[in-house]
Every structure is written in structure tokens, then in C-alpha cells.
């Protein structure tokens, strides 16, 4: 794995079918995928494994996505600067603004299509377009 040049994406979402859908989609696009079911688990994983992109839900048990991104941005580099694609069912402008203010790089409203997920994921993690 040490020489694996493929980009790595961590999916942070408490819904198992969402994680499965994203995983299938992103793996088909040539990315390596990890999963965490809330913000705390994501922080644990990020301390052990490097990721090039985080796809983060908002509402999750114990630690929500906004609190997670705020906490992430306060950590040390390079972990702190990992790009975040926030994807949530919440479409209110105020809530999207909160995600941006916390440090999310991009926000898309669920449900996502495979095309949109791959397009944004490749763009944000700097992978060559397929």
C-alpha cells in the first residue's frame, strides 16, 4: 500500500446504504475508500491513515459533520487541510453557510448522483479526470 498512488477518500456518514453507494461509486472511479460512521471515528482514522478527501454528512450521532470539520481545521498540518466535500439532506441556505464557515470546501445537497459524486471527488482530491 505504501507505493499505492491512488487517491484515498474517507466517507463519514452514519447511513450504511449511503456509505455503500459512495464506496461502490468511488471505487469504480479508481479511488481507495475508507468509512467512518461519525466525526469521532473519522478523527480516529485520520490520525492513523492519510486521506486526500473527506465526504462528510452533517447529522450524525455523537459528533456531527460541522463540529467534525471545525475540529479537523484546528488540528495540525497536513491532516487539517484535507479537502472536505459536505453532502447532506439539509438544503437551507443558513445551514449550508454554517458548513462553509466551519471549513467545508464544497457542499452538495443529497441525494447525490454517481456522476456528481465522482466529478466533485476527483476535482477536490486533485486526481486526474478519468
Amino acid at each position, binding site marked *: 500500500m505504501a507505493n499505492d498512488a491512488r487517491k484515498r477518500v474517507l466517507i463519514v456518514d452514519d447511513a450504511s446504504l449511503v456509505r455503500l453507494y459512495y464506496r461502490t461509486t468511488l471505487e469504480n472511479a479508481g479511488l481507495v475508500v475508507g468509512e467512518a460512521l461519525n466525526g*469521532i471515528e473519522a478523527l*480516529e482514522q485520520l*490520525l*492513523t491513515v492519510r486521506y486526500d478527501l473527506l465526504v462528510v454528512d452533517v447529522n450524525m450521532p*455523537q459528533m456531527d459533520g460541522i*463540529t467534525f470539520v471545525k475540529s479537523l481545521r484546528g488540528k495540525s498540518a497536513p491532516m487539517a487541510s484535507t479537502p472536505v466535500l459536505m453532502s447532506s439532506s439539509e438544503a437551507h441556505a443558513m445551514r449550508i453557510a454554517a458548513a462553509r464557515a466551519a471549513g467545508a470546501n464544497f457542499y452538495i445537497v443529497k441525494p447525490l448522483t454517481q456522476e456528481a459524486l465522482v466529478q466533485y471527488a476527483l476535482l477536490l482530491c486533485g486526481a486526474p479526470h478519468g
Partner: protein
Amino acid sequence: MTFTQAKRYYVERRVVERMTATGSDSFEDYFGRLRSDVYGEIEHFVNAFTVNETYFYREEHQLACLSSDLLPARLQMKPPGEPIRIWSVPCSTGEEPYSIAIWLLENWPLVDQHDIEIVGSDIDTNAVSAARAGMYVKRAFMRLPPYLLEKYFEPEQDDAWKIIDDLRQSVHFTTANIVDRTQTNAHGRFDVIFCRNVLIYFDETSRRRAAENLYENLFPGGFICLGHTESMSRISPLFDVARFADAIVYQRPPE
């Protein structure tokens, strides 16, 4: 792992425990959760069958983390001269707190320069009495290097070994229920708490109460170590995640 007919009661008891812990009202309901691995139930189920399998030097990587990272980090934050306090809770029959004592005597170069107080507590008074007595059979030593067995234990009858008096007197044992705030508060604050394989068995409310109690039992910046299959991600957001070379541990945020 194979179970004979004689172990049937043991198996049933563990399954009932897990049904209670998950709020399952029927075996079918529980079996469904187990099959779909709801909230990592498979892992919890497996743990239920191994929870009392305690022995000396279990989870040695955490002991390594204690001496190489946690204690040095605590010393930087503590006023000089204050004792270092370590709590093993629940401590079952004492293998863990004694392991901590042995590990520090063997592996921590600064062990002579600081007062170290090790407290072991368990809700089970029988376990606490056994811990105080300090008698163990061979199985408890499966991970302890033989020269340490010779050094810190004396052979007794029937293949049993007793921990030497010096070491026995260096660990203080108490009875405590970690869900009960009055009981936990009475133990004061610690630098490091080992709380392995118990929080996952509690219901949601007890788990939150226990996490808040343990938070109060830590100095700001103090550490808590869970079992290697456990994660605060399913228990409480009160603690920070900290990663060291040998282990992931949790920290009460420094003030």
C-alpha cells in the same frame, strides 16, 4: 472457540446479556441485529465471550504507550512533586493494576523519581477481595515473561502463584460502580484511567453517565484508555482523540 454442552449456560447468559444491552426484546430481534452487524454487534458479541479472559500484560501496547508517551505528557503538565495517579476501573481480579505496576517498575526509567499511586476498583466485591489476595493460576501468566513471574510472584500450592507483598501493597483496591457519581468522585482525580471493555455493555444513559463521571475523575489533560476494540465514537464526544506510536487514547481537553 468450541462450546460443549456444559458451557451451554455460559453461552445463554452471554446472549441474554447482549440482548439486554441492545434492547432486543426477542432472540429473533437480537439475531437480526447480529446478522446485520447493527452498531458493530458482531464485535460486541465476540467480546461478550471473552470479557472475563483477563491476564497479566493484556494489551501490552497500551502499557508501552503509558510509559513512553502518556506519563511524559502528564509530567509536562503537572506541578512538580505531585504524585502520579493511575486508575484501573473495572479492575476485575487485579491483573490489570498489578500489570501496570510491574510494567512501570520494569520499563519506566523515571519510576524512582516520582510517587506513583495505582488504584484498582471494581463493582464486584468478590473480584476486589481476590485482587487484594493476589493469587493467580497459570493461565493468567500466558503473556508475562517467565523472568517477571519469578521476580514478582511466589509459588503457592496447586499451581498457583501469589504476588509478592511489596507489589501487593503498592496497589490500592476499592469497590466502585462507575455509573455512580458519588462513588467515582470519592476516588479523586487521576492522570491516566484504564477503563477497558465495560462501557460498551451499558445502555445509552449509563454510558453517558459513566463517561461524564470518568471525565470528572481526570485532571484536565489526563488520559483514558479503552479496550482495543472500543471507541469513544460510540460512547461520548467529551474527550479528544489522541494518537501515540503504540495506541489511540482519549484525553480530557487541557485547560
